[in-house]
């Protein structure tokens, strides 16, 4: 990693051209550029408009069900015998994941901009479901691009999107996963730019998306601060979250970035292992340009993008949001990884010990608890972002567990 000078604050980015250090930017076709500038302007205006915030807060409370609880994971805490483990319960949001926080903001923006048609890419389907939900609520047309492999492994979410009135378009190109869905969404956007709003599901893409999605997700960390203050009278000591593009992680991390005493861990998907097929772009990638931004990417020597692999469709992407890339270089966020197998074990452990069936994505964060929690004192406050619930994954987890099955011995 490049050595970068430490800034006074980690929370001032990006600059007006969308850069976090060398990362970010606006690497898009000319057709999209005028719209991206228009979006940037519309977002700045909305952000400054108290009525926008007021409306958003209302929907977050009454429709999404926020604030989401911060709950003590008592049996897991006892199990590891170290740090006091808290869950930030994003799985309890309407639609079952953190994705809805961002989608609400973007759909309100789409309405402000007068765009009747919304497109989205989705991996695990949680972002697709959240987008379909908000489009149903506000009466917008919704088209979701989803890799054909993900359509197969996240069937429950495909059905949910269809029930909500969205059109799901399976994408057959490439590895038929999230990257390919994003390519196809961008192609649709180029074609239908005048009436279409592209609702990106993570802190990636061209500026202003990484900043805008982060801002909408920051409610996770802001609530966590207040809730921990109330529960323990102080800030947490460490935070941990899984990283696909990095939106649930950024939402939790960002409000704490300038609290230097708070240790922050992001967990990437190590798939079959870091020496084999995986989706850990910080661990196994280097800076490159894809999907509108410069960031860490998995690629071959000559700059062709590698297909990622993860058991978790939501983490199965060869890149990461640009702000995370910057924070990784600065060392402010420590990047770890967890394999498919470790995530599966965490899935079972969390379900059995806490009565919470987690999505496979946050299972990657849960999987690293065994390394971090035991060595910490009992008053070390550790927050895990439980970014989504695991109903969507039951079929595929059962398949992976094989003969032992979901009910087998741990």
């Amino acid at each position, binding site marked *: 990693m490049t050595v970068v000078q430490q800034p006074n604050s980690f929370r001032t980015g990006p600059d007006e051209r969308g850069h976090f250090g060398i990362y970010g930017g606006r690497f898009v*076709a000319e*057709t999209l550029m005028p719209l991206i500038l228009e979006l940037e302007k519309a977002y700045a205006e909305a952000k400054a408009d108290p009525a926008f915030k007021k409306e958003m807060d209302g929907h977050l409370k009454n429709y999404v069900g926020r604030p989401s609880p911060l709950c003590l994971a008592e049996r897991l805490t006892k199990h590891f015998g170290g740090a006091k483990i808290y869950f930030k319960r994003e799985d309890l949001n309407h639609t079952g994941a953190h994705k809805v926080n961002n989608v609400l903001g973007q759909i309100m923006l789409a309405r402000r901009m007068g765009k009747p048609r919304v497109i989205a890419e989705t991996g695990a389907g949680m972002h697709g479901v959240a987008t379909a939900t908000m489009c149903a609520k506000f009466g917008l047309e919704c088209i979701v691009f989803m890799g054909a492999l993900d359509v197969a492994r996240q069937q429950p979410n495909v059905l949910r999107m269809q029930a909500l009135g969205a059109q799901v378009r399976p994408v057959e190109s490439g590895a038929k996963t999230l990257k390919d869905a994003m390519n196809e969404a961008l*192609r649709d956007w180029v074609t239908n730019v005048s009436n279409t709003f592209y609702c990106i599901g993570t802190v990636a893409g061209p500026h202003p998306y990484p900043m805008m999605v982060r801002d909408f997700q920051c409610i996770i960390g802001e609530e966590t601060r207040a809730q921990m203050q109330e529960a323990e009278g102080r800030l947490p000591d460490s935070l941990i979250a899984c990283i696909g593009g990095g939106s649930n992680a950024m939402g939790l991390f960002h409000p704490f970035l300038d609290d230097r005493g708070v240790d922050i861990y992001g967990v990437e998907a190590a798939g079959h292992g870091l020496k084999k097929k995986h989706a850990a772009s910080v661990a196994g990638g280097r800076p490159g340009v894809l999907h509108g931004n410069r960031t860490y990417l998995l*690629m071959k020597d000559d700059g062709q993008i590698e297909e990622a692999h993860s058991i978790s469709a939501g983490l199965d992407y060869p890149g990461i949001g640009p702000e995370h890339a910057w924070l990784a270089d600065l060392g402010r966020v420590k990047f770890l990884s967890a394999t498919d197998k470790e995530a599966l074990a965490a899935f079972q452990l969390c379900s059995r010990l806490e009565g919470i069936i987690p999505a496979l994505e946050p299972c990657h964060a849960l999987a690293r608890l065994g390394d971090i929690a035991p060595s910490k004192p009992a008053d070390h406050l550790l927050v895990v972002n439980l970014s989504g619930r695991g109903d969507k994954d039951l079929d595929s987890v059962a398949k992976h567990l094989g003969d032992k099955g979901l009910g087998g011995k741990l």
Partner: protein
Amino acid sequence: MTTRIDQRFADLKREGRAALVTYTMAGDPDTRTSLEILKALPKAGADVIELGMPFTDPMADGPAIQAGGLRALNAGQTMIKTLGMVRAFRKGDSATPIVLMGYYNPIYIYGVMKFLADAKAAGVDGLIVVDLPPEEDEELCIPALKAGLNFIRLATPTTDDRRLPAVLANTSGFVYYVSITGITGSAAPDADKVHAAVTRIKRHTRLPVAVGFGVRTAKQARAIAQGAEGVAVGSALVNAVKDSLDRKGKATARTVKAVAVLVAELARGVRGAKHKSP
């Protein structure tokens, strides 16, 4: 500084006709056949060559060029081989301009300065990089201009009069007008609308304007050529390659000829246009 591109458009202006700009994917279906196609293009009537640099994630391209790029990559095409093709082509043709077209990442990873030096030395005349708008000019555009390469920018139906000056500011060689809001290989553009757009662009620049995206047939090429200095054809040629392959996707004796025949037909269309200089 006059480049081969400037020279070619100046010559054609004297002849009173538009340029046929042909796109071919480097390495499709394999490097050797692709080089043969490249060499056959000028003889068949191509005036300017766009050589596609294959990329795994061509987000502004339709199915035809996506597939062509994957065929090239699966056959082992790399940037080094693509530049090697240009070098080989230049041994027999020192006049036909070659513009490399593609996406930024393979160039960025090759190393911008090294890429510019190697491309120039190989005989490349210009670059079209789809995902580098003027907002990112410092990345490649400005270094390319300094290295003596033309940087050809895409102007689109969404590029309004307010934005055009920024798009044209560092553009050289020619302006590539993308005739539709869409990806390559989409529906054919409406010639009247295109002419109006070209006229609009010409109010802002003295550079030649070539029109592309969606042009397939000689008839369409002729209609477009009546109001522009160039007509670009891509997906149709890449499809001609595809349709000539055997069941395993390998080149056949027909491959080079299939492209040449289509180019000759398109050239007749372009040359038959009554060119009213816009």
